């Protein structure tokens, strides 16, 4: 639970401080955001399943973001950045949807 609270504090701090992101990081942000969303939905589902764990949540969040950024970086340098990004978004999108479906089943029993 403390991980979720820490995450909220971080979100608010980021919104209030509004630091500028260096230009070389900009291309990795969209896919990193999608990866982070995947981790958040996974955490939410784990919470409803009753097996939430702070450590696993934080590690999965950070590693998701780093791996996503790495894939885009690698793809950009190999000349297939757009295709790799599409692949990552498709896989993460499917995961987000099925996690959201599991959450929905937990909450609405439907």
């Amino acid at each position: 639970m403390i991980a979720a609270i820490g995450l909220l504090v971080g979100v608010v701090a980021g919104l209030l401080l509004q630091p500028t992101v260096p230009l070389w990081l900009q291309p990795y942000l969209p896919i990193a955001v999608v990866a982070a969303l995947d981790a958040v939905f996974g955490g939410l589902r784990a919470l409803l399943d009753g097996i939430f764990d702070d450590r696993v949540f934080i590690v999965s969040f950070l590693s998701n973001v780093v791996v996503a950024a790495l894939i885009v970086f690698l793809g950009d340098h190999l000349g297939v950045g757009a295709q790799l990004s599409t692949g990552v978004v498709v896989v993460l999108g499917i995961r987000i949807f099925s996690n959201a479906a599991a959450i929905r089943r937990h909450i609405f029993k439907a």
Partner: protein
Amino acid sequence: MTLLREVMERPLDPSYAAAAASPHPRTRRGTVLTILLAIVAGAAFSVSVSSIRQPQRASTQVNNHLRDEIEKRTKAVERQETANAALRATIELTQRNALGAGGAQLSEQARRLGVAAGELPVSGPGLQFTLDDAPTAQEAVGGDPRADTDFDDGTLYDADLQIVVNGLWAAGAEAIAINGQRLTALSAIRSAGQAILVDFRALRRPYVVEAIGDSSRMQANFAAGSAGAYVQSMRDNVHIRADIETSKKLVLPGAGQLVLRAARPLTSAGAG
């Protein structure tokens, strides 16, 4: 497809289940580290989201600002053109008064020259051409900007208008205006980005080309010339809209005073 099944059926990170199966003791250091990392992750998340959104907002702001500016300046130009027309009428009147009765011939000559040069408005019978992009090209506007756009996609370009205008001159037109912009000896039809410019004024679709002249002769000559064949092929092949109407009375605006800054008339000595 094992990979797809893996993705579809077990989207929850297996490490959650593993951690639940074998709980590890929570240390003080671990807790602090978790909170710190969580704060960092949250901040990174919100900062990324807001910085992805911001540039777009800034660019649309700039776009809107530029659009306002263009509209404002265009209005200013129009106002000044109206003022110009009024002043020109005054000048003409004063000229006629100053020249007196003997100057009637001179002022009449000035009027004729002004009409021929395109400075003064004219009216007469003629042809009205309405040209427009093909329906498919219109749909493509605002679609995927990365979609292939070749030159045969049914969009009209400045070169097309140039060919039509040239054909009309060749067919015997005496005065031509495009969307109310009178063509003179100094006019240029060119493009900037997606827009077609006539005398640095951007045109909006559809393009209406009005030409004063003997309408039946002009129509026959135009159709017989290469421009007529070109328009016909554009209409048949890429479905560009091109309607020709004859009109008994067209009114073309004047282009206003033509200002020559460098060119000087030859003196009689220089001409000799």
